[in-house]
């Protein structure tokens, strides 16, 4: 399986090893195809895609922690213009009504588990054809799919953090508060903190208001991280977090979430 100019470079992502072996076995029967690697979780999938730049990724949709859509979202770029040469994706799923519908609407190929050989060869043949026709994947298509899936899924459970050498996910329940600094957001998670690009307005939309509240122009706190709230002047509050951080809850934002001050 040496690299030839027209050979298809493939990555396989699934959290279950037997499921990966099954796809790899089917792929090994193919000619002019190079298996560039495999990944068993979302974070290593993102790293592998960025490192090997595969043409085609077989991507398991359901993975714990962060799933296949998180991978696509990271690759297609959260508005930070990284989607230069995104690979083609073939989604693999056991059972997922709304995802399957989204795949069909946005013309993405998918495989259902248990994976049948005929369907597999058919999907692979189509992928080769499209790959030959135009090297680029429509970024618009990916974004459309992701937007639809995100709409279905509601608020985000995890946030993608990119560092120079790697990308990883942070569970929103680990974040105690988020601070904005110019074009960056600092996620404070206990002793650790993570930096990501973005604005407070855009991240506020992604977070469940049952878990988070914006308390001033430049901070969002997780409600469970609050230890106490002390009245201050002019209808403002001093918000003390469990980690002893103190943040001001400005009056303008107090009036936005009056229900938080009401006794349950």
């Amino acid at each position, binding site marked *: 399986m040496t690299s030839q100019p027209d050979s298809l470079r493939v990555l396989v992502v699934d959290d279950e090893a037997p499921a990966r072996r099954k796809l790899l076995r089917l792929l090994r029967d193919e000619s002019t195809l190079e298996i560039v690697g495999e990944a068993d979780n979302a974070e290593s999938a993102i790293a592998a895609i960025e490192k090997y730049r595969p043409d085609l990724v077989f991507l398991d949709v359901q993975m714990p922690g*962060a799933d296949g859509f998180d991978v696509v979202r990271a690759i297609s770029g959260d508005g930070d213009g990284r989607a230069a040469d995104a690979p083609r994706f073939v989604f693999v799923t056991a059972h997922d009504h709304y995802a399957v519908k989204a795949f069909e609407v946005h013309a993405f190929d998918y495989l259902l588990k248990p994976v049948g050989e005929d369907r597999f060869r058919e999907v692979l043949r189509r992928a080769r054809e499209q790959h030959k026709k135009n090297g680029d994947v429509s970024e618009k298509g990916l974004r459309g799919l992701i937007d639809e899936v995100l709409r279905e899924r509601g608020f985000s459970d995890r946030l993608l953090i990119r560092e120079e050498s790697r990308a990883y996910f942070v569970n929103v329940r680990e974040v105690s508060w988020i601070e904005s600094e110019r074009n960056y957001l600092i996620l404070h998670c206990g002793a650790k903190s993570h930096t990501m690009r973005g604005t407070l307005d855009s991240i506020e939309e992604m977070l469940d208001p049952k878990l988070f509240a914006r308390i001033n122009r430049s901070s969002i706190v997780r409600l469970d991280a609050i230890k106490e709230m002390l009245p201050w002047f002019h209808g403002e509050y001093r918000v003390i977090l469990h980690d002893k951080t103190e943040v001001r809850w400005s009056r303008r934002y107090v009036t936005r979430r009056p229900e938080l001050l009401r006794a349950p």
Partner: protein
Amino acid sequence: MSSVSTNRDDLSFRPAFVGSPSAVDAEPVSQVQPPPLPLAKTWSIIFLIYTGIAILLTGYRYLDDLSRNRPGTLAIRSLEEITGVYTAFVLLPLVFRAADLYLFRPKRMNWVLTGFWHIVAGVTFSLAHTSLMAITREIISPLVGLGRYDYGIMFYRYPMELSNDLVGFTSIVCLYYYFRKFRLAQAQELAAAQLKTKLAEAQLENLRLQLQPHFLFNTLNTISSVMYEDVKAADQMVTQLSDLLRLTLRASRTHEIPLGDELQITRLYLDLMQKRYEEKLRVRYEIDSALSDALVPQLILQPLLENSLRHGMKASGEAIDISIDARRENGSLTLKISDTGTGFGSSDPNSVLGRGVGLVNIRDRLAQLYGGGQTFSIANRAGGGAEIALRLPYRTAQRSQLAADPAAANASDAGISAESNSSDSEPSSLPSVAPLRPLSQDQ
């Protein structure tokens, strides 16, 4: 195939109480207390009833006088009956308290002793009632212009009123006794119904879990991969998956099953999960083998494990260790499920419970089954990961069996023999099997 038949023998899954779930229900549900009555409303109603009695008795006495041609006694008869009835009303709380002490407090009813205390209480009541009547009439009569009241010689009054009072006292106590019994039975019926609903929900939840298309299709996908590598291993997985489906179809209607049976389902489930995740999932059992007869709520472990797997595994794909721990501590059984996953990420129990629907159901079921005799705790482990612990009263199947009446024991024999020679007819008796029909048709 040998493993299937051994499994079936091991499956005295429906423990002893087939057809008589009440034998199991009886113990936990008997701790149920009816909701408190609205005090003001209850006493107002009793007061109205007593007023009615006072009016009727006054009428009775006055008409008696009229028929003997002794008119003009309405005022004095009213005074007599009103004081007589309302002094009895004032004594009612003490009557109820006394009835509580000798009717409801003793664990076992001894008729001689109960009769004795009833008479003692009745005589005391009569003495108090007669004295109160004498005193109130003495005081009120001059105040309402009826002059000094003459109650006659008290030495004869007391025994005279005693006969009357004993009849009244006995009827009040009887009414009180049956009223309380009735309310208790009502509350127990309600609690038993609620418990049944919870069990049905748990069964459904469990079905959804195992026959969750995800679980089923992913397991089948694993089998379809493993069969190219190791035909024997693939064959074993097919058997395990079938056993698991069969056990789920058979889930009994009893609230509690022996821990050994519960663990059998757990092991099949985790074995299959382990084959899917290979080295990414490690399971450790620490089960005291003497505990296999201990009764645990049916289908309690699986939702907890599923919770650990689904929410505990990390995005970075690290391996997760799950351990299942069962031990006996004094009079209680402690079941603990801990994992090295992401933990709950929050100390707020409400948001923790929100992590899985199953957890809320389990908490409610435990509370209904054991009341204050259980604890259900959710915590983050110091080294990372989650820990869920249940503490239940320790009871074994054997002991409950002895407690059950002979009829129940007969029913249980019939149940076991019916089970051993039928495999297909069982599921139809279960209310929660409906969603499975399409599957069994495929087979």
